[in-house]
């Protein structure tokens, strides 16, 4: 029988090392233009991939999520703050799921 606390410690150790090694070991400013460009694009790709299509299946109603997605993109495009965009998406889902 495996000990649940050992599982938890192993998970925590592996996850922490994944996070800590690059940040603690890469201490210099990287001059290579390709690597700098690569790292510049990483957040945009990662966040976009994580958002879509996952957002559609995150809620009870996919339609509500799709509308929330469009509303959030529109508000962000208009330069609304992160707080406004995020809360608006929640409100849209809440209201639409009341109706649908």
């Amino acid at each position, binding site marked *: 029988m495996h000990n649940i606390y050992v599982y938890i410690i192993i*998970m925590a150790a592996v996850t922490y090392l994944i996070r800590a090694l690059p940040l603690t070991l890469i201490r210099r400013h990287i001059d290579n233009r390709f690597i700098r460009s690569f790292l510049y694009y990483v957040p945009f790709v990662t966040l976009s991939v994580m958002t879509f299509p996952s957002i559609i299946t995150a809620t009870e*109603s996919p339609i509500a999520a799709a509308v929330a997605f469009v509303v*959030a993109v529109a508000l962000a495009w208009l330069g609304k703050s992160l707080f406004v965009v995020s809360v608006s998406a929640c409100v849209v889902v809440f209201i639409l799921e009341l109706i649908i």
Partner: protein
Amino acid sequence: MRDAFPVFLGYLAVSFTFGIAARNSDLTVFQATLMSLLNLTSAGQFASLGIIAASASYFEMAATQLIINLRYSLMSSTLSQKVDTKLPFFHRAIMSFGVTDEIFALGAGVHDTLSPFYCYGMMASAIPGWTLGTFFGVVLGNILPDRLLSALSVALYGMFIAIVIPPSRRNKVVAGVVALSMLASALFTYLPVVSQISSGFRIIILTVVISAVVALLFPVEDKEDENA
């Protein structure tokens, strides 16, 4: 701190559902809360419940966490270029604990040098949100209406959108990258064969391939990469 509020809300909602799942997997309140406090990661923790339930080997647990959470090392590499090069080891070591999808998103969105204290502020709202949500999820079970949890679950996605869209308006290449990434992600989710790839790997593969190709085709000038 306003930026941190959606993180707190989103974490509370997601970890609440994690708490319910942990309760259904017969974890105690203490075990589930400890797991959330020490791991601070959603996909990895959800996956761990299946592994614990199956009483799989410790190696399998380590390998699964490595695969699901490997994306954090890419994020951590990006952040390494945003912090002051003279930042001492202990700040880096503490900040590392807070490299989650959401804190990374906010950290990457900072215009100039990323201060460790900005990260600590985020962590000060993320860690209690995540841990408390788990605690209440296990203790209370299904007490919150599903509709509320459903609405709150888009908070984090709304945040990601608020981070990638404004730079897309200023920079056509970034706009293309965002659109291409979402399209590719959708294809990888629904097409046969590639949809077998786990979500953790999907994120890593697409991030590495798309970022590398775009970096080759459209290398950034030093000036604009300070706006990252």
